[in-house]
């Protein structure tokens, strides 16, 4: 077989060349990614991680809509400086129900993977409305409309159904609800039941009153509820500090 002939054959068949190029460049990805689906320890087995409640989920949608991820990562890397500033490094398990995950790749602002509980609701609200009133050197934009825009809750169930399609265990049927009660406990499981989505959202928003205004549910309520749960699901005091070393 003549080598020159073969080369010419590829170069003069653009369709074949496209296929072969795709094969060549996918090798790197396949070799690095595919084994992770077969390795047992890719996702840490850890207690407490659950899908977001309807209100938190809506907050996450707003987080994505406003492009928070372009300046804030949600991925604490296993370095000493990051541990000291942000806390325990992020686990794969902690973003297992995130679609898409918000790891991010750029930090103009600080990492938010464990921002939940670090500041009061009031700080979060004021800081989102006018960041420089809280942190004078901040370059974060103002998001005043979050406080004045009523949260659209009409499509909450539909959004959860969409996430259910990509694998988030929100329940539609009684059987699924029972499975969730088994897995997450009754309190959490009820929050994840799609038929009750709107009721659950309203209840959490009214009880939590995240934006400090009881007159209605604003987008701020949802976003602050989301921020306040970030990184708080796993109780790391239950684990030795090397509990997750074997996963890598």
């Amino acid at each position, binding site marked *: 077989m003549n080598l*020159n002939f073969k080369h*010419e054959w590829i170069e003069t068949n653009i369709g074949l060349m496209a296929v072969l190029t795709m094969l060549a460049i996918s090798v790197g990805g396949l070799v690095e990614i595919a*084994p992770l689906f*077969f*390795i*047992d*320890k890719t996702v840490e087995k850890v207690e407490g991680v659950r899908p977001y409640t309807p209100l938190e989920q809506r907050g996450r949608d707003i987080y994505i809509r406003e492009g928070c991820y372009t300046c804030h990562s949600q991925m604490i*890397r*296993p*370095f*000493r400086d990051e*541990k*000291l*500033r942000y*806390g325990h*490094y992020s686990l794969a398990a902690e973003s297992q129900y995130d679609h898409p995950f918000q790891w991010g790749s750029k930090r103009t602002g600080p990492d938010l993977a464990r921002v939940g*509980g*670090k*500041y*009061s*609701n*009031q*700080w979060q609200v*004021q*800081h989102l409305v006018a960041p420089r*009133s*809280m*942190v*004078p050197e901040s370059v974060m934009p103002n998001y005043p409309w979050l406080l004045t825009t009523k949260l659209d809750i009409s499509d909450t169930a539909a959004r959860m159904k969409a996430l259910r399609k990509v694998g988030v265990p929100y329940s539609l049927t009684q059987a699924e609800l029972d499975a969730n009660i088994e897995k997450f406990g009754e309190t959490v499981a009820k929050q994840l039941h799609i038929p009750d989505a709107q009721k659950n959202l309203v209840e959490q928003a009214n009880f939590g009153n995240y934006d*400090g205004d009881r007159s209605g549910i604003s987008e701020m309520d949802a976003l602050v509820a989301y921020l306040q749960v970030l990184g708080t699901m796993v109780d790391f*005091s239950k684990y*030795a*500090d*090397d509990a*997750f*070393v*074997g*996963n*890598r």
Partner: protein
Amino acid sequence: MSEQKLQSQTVQTTGHAWDGDLQEYNNPLPVWWVYTFYATVIFSIVYWVIYPSWPIGKDWIGGMSKITYVNSEGETKTHSWNTRALLLQDLNKAAAEQKPYFDKVSGMSYAQIAQDPEMNAFILSAGRALFADNCAPCHQAGGQGVVGFFPNLTDDDWLYGGSYDEIHQTLMIGRRGYMPAFGEVLNGDQIDQLANYVAKLSGSGHDAAKAAAGDALFHSETAACFYCHGDDAKGRKDLGAPNLTDNIWLWADVPGASGDEGKIAAIRGVIAGGLNKGVMPAWAGRLSPEQIKVLTVYVHELGGGQ
């Protein structure tokens, strides 16, 4: 050109021709390049042997490089190289370097720390870093706070007490300030009278007649202000109820208001609306006991605690 002629004689072409006479030289790769390429191949094999590399079924080869660390249970462990083990090794190393200082911190009383010049320097540097990461977003870099939101830590006023133990408690369990909204139980005149009385307490301009009526209201069961703020209006630190007589303002922006009427209006706003926003998070789960002790002394020094 003579050089071109020379090349055409010594270098072969790829053998195929386009448009009849267009040919391509088949120059050999430079020797340095070829050997560098071989070197990278050898490097990759060495790398596979030393570091985690090949997946095998449900597990993978950890590699020959090992990392030894001491975990939080005090056990010494060795694990094949990865960044999580490396982090623990790093933390061990830093902890060993800081241990003499943190041991001293946990072994000394607050007063001893404050009087020891070396420990003072440590508190200033370690405390400043901790304060900047954790406290400054609310209390601001210098601890000056924000009127209407977060208390000033550099003045003499301590809502929940300014002793070392009280500051420590505030850091450990957090605080939640609350004042009911009196707009629901008192009428506008009564709130105005109370506001005039509160203005009088700290020496601001006020209407004497209204203040006298406010005084009575303050100490009556109708408004019952004295339950939390005390008979002398000097506050109760077990409740975080502020001293109203010291002219230090957190919630009502009296210093920022213009004119006596503006100042009284600011006070009226707080009385009518109440407060349910003085929330300080708990730090016990987030910071280590030694770090909280460092911060306790640092914050105490900021305002010259009590």
